[in-house]
């Protein structure tokens, strides 16, 4: 029997438990052990950003972390962004109204990375180069990024209006 370690952590506000071999990545643990398959794997070497989740409010690449490292931490995944009643977050709304997703595979990573950015107050959101640099940690092959840029501005504006 393989060496499995129990892991308890909070995900999207809920305390969850599972077990994983020490070598299991956090991404695989979220997806395969906890069934949270909204976190996607695009490269498994930390470049594409599709697997981005928040750990204690900071974005991390879940493909570059072991599940055991998340023990006792607080995680947010894409499944935790909508309100409990299912209504979309301002960012999710903005992504849809601005057509900021096509195939949608990279979208969870973008949503998480931008959620962190919006929580910081979206510094430099009106400056094209600053905003694009901030988004450059996530790869998208479909949208050419333009509508993502627009959606992030729109979300920042929505949040400014009704914080």
């Amino acid at each position: 029997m393989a060496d499995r370690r129990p892991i308890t952590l909070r995900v999207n506000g809920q305390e969850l438990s599972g077990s994983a071999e020490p070598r299991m990545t956090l991404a695989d643990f979220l997806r395969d052990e906890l069934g949270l398959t909204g976190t996607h794997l695009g490269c498994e070497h930390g470049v594409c950003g599709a697997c981005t989740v928040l750990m204690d409010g900071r974005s991390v690449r879940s493909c570059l972390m072991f599940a055991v490292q998340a023990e006792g931490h607080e995680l947010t995944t894409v499944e935790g962004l909508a309100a409990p009643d299912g209504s979309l977050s301002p960012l999710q709304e903005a992504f849809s109204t601005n057509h900021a997703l096509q195939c949608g595979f990279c979208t969870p990573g973008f949503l998480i990375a931008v959620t962190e950015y919006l929580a910081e107050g979206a510094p430099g959101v009106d400056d094209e180069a600053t905003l694009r640099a901030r988004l450059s940690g996530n790869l998208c092959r479909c949208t050419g990024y333009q509508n993502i840029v627009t959606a992030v501005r729109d979300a920042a504006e929505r949040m400014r209006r009704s914080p």
Partner: protein
Amino acid sequence: MSDPAHPYAPAGEPGSPPVRPANYVGQRLRRKEDARLLTGRATHVADLRIPGLLHAAVLRSPFAHARIAGIETEAAAAAAGVVRVVTARDLEGRVGPFVEAARSEISPLLNEKIGPTLKSCPMPVLAADRVLWVGQPVAAIVATDRYRAEDALELVQVDYEPLPPVSDPERALEPGAPVLHPELGDNVQTSFVVSVGDVDGAFARAERTLSARLVMGRTAANAMETRGVAAVPDAGRDELTVWDANARPHLVRTFICEMLGMPADSVRVIGPDMGGSFGTGMFPEDVLIAFLARELGRPVRWIEDRRENLSNTRHARDQIHQVEVAFDGDGRILALKDRYLIDAGAYNNYAITVSYNSAAHLRGQFAIDHMRVEALSVLTNKAPVTPVRGAGRPEVVFVMDRIVDLVATELGLDPVEVRRRNLIRPEQMPYPMGMPYRDGVDIVYDRADFPGQLNRALQMFGYEEFRREQAAARDAGRRIGVGVSSYVEGSGYGPYEGAVVRIDPRGHVTVATGAKPHGQSLETTLAQICADQLGVTPDDVTVRAGDTALIAHGIGTFASRSAVTAGTAVGVAAARLREKVLAVAAELLEIHPSDLDLDHGAVAARGAPDRRVSLADIARAATPGPRAKLPPGMEPGLEVVYYYVPPTVTFASGTHVVGVEVDEETGFVRLLKYVTTDDCGRMLNPTIVEGQVHGGVAHGIGNALFEEVVYDGDAQLLTGTYLDYLLPTASDVPPIAVGHQEEFPSELNPFGIKGVGEGGAVSPPAAIANAIVDALRPLRVHIDRVPIGPEGLYRLIREARAASRAG
């Protein structure tokens, strides 16, 4: 209009009612796909929860060319969690050969007119005696989890005896070069010649000629989701359900059935949510995983990793053109000769798809009466190339637009002026190009206004103002430049696509089609088309695409084809279903169908709206059984199946203008602004069209500046990760302004649709290369190869400086 109609415009099919005018079509509706994708509830192959699932991993060749002297699998088979190890020997006599060339049938008409030379080289599912590229599948391991399957890969001992690799397609043609497939005689897998007009005469008469060697390097498709296959057997019935991240579910089914010897309806292939595709086609793993599941009687899944993807999931482009051009003193291009090689890699499963696309699109928007092209697909020890977004077009648009620029430079004219002088004029439309398309039908361009398109793009860009800025910038030591490129694109390639449109007893509409979207938003646009014909809202329509159980025949989503082919199929099927709905309603209301209107989910008497019956009531009246109330002789059921067979492709077009700044000291290129104007006929949803253009442009920017699959002299892959293969990020893509010409709906289908999926990716390499040349005009830099990164450009700048000092 007094213009002649397009010769291929259909006269109207018997039994096809006229389509209703657009209502939802053309609106910027939010996408139906978004909700699940935004909340993490989409279902990709890797997301499926399948009880008892086993996991496969594939061992791949580390050598470009080697003999396999032996494979030792015992240690792997004995490893923890391993259920089965298979090599080519285990498939012998049980899995048929993977033959695609024979299948991507050359149209008999094209065969007759062009007579290409085609050689067959079926690909083994797993390499048997030899490996022919780095990344070729050699063995597969099935284990209880993916970690253990990958552990066991390291325990397989393959005794490779390296052979001399063929890494250069030009050397592959030299006498004495190693021959990849000895049974083919040499390394040329396909070739053809297309001749239009009197090329030799035109060259003999020409005032001027020039020649150039122009190269587009090798790139890769890079869908963000890697490939994946999950196969679930029903051992008792010997049936399989296969989920496959492949844009052609019906073709996957055909391959599985033929290679494993199973009846079509015993295999159901479902295309789940898919994270992009951009081309790439069929793969041995599509069948291998099905075989393993059937063999083991247990569900098996394989999810490709990015390293496998970059080495094996099919590359693209990689063409070398040797061009000669004849022109006059005014810059009129009179004739072209182009001999080009495609480095096809180790197998060429797509025959002449890409090479012929290149021939058919070389002249693009230009009126050039005389042309001869000779195309050769050459085999080398690299991953096979396939059609990828643009599929042979970006390469020749780069060639043509560089030629226009070279002619202008030679004559001291503004490249835009030379371009304008050569464009096909609107009054010449529909314009015959003097050669067949890939379907064998003689090319006749759809009505369009290319000069108007160019003018609109230049105006959006602010061309004159940019030229003034450029002069000022030059004085200040800054190098900025502008580049233009234009293309046409045969879109909506056949042979067909179909639709089943059905109304359920609640009045809800379901559409099934063999097209398989992976980002194209067909759930939304097909619902828009259907809603208009059935007088419901898009919310009342559910589109189910890419499930072989829901429609008997299907082709898939690629080649900018689905809006045209599936869109027309859905629209016509829905229009026919409307006729049936009206007939049943007439029976219920006892009013003649011609006095009835179908709208807002109900049929009402014209002028007496209180006499109405809902779609739900009509659907119930059409249900077979004693309560059915149908006109005499009418079949029960509110369902129509329709397969649309396009007469040929419909031609979309576009013009791109880009402004760049070049840092002479580093060779770094910054894109300042990017403008496109496209003609894709009637837009189903302009927001979605613009999104397609944005994404295509970003893809093309990658092809122009960043992305290259690099092999060394031993055909060893050097770009196996995203640290080596650079995709454009948000910082690398400038804001893109998208304009449209909407005044030329296609005459070839009743909805006026032309395709738009690939166009955006076609022009950026050409436009950007021309803009860089323009920025460096004083240095007389010639870009003959893309992608052009900082290192390459810096070298060109240094050479140009040295030349000018020497001169």
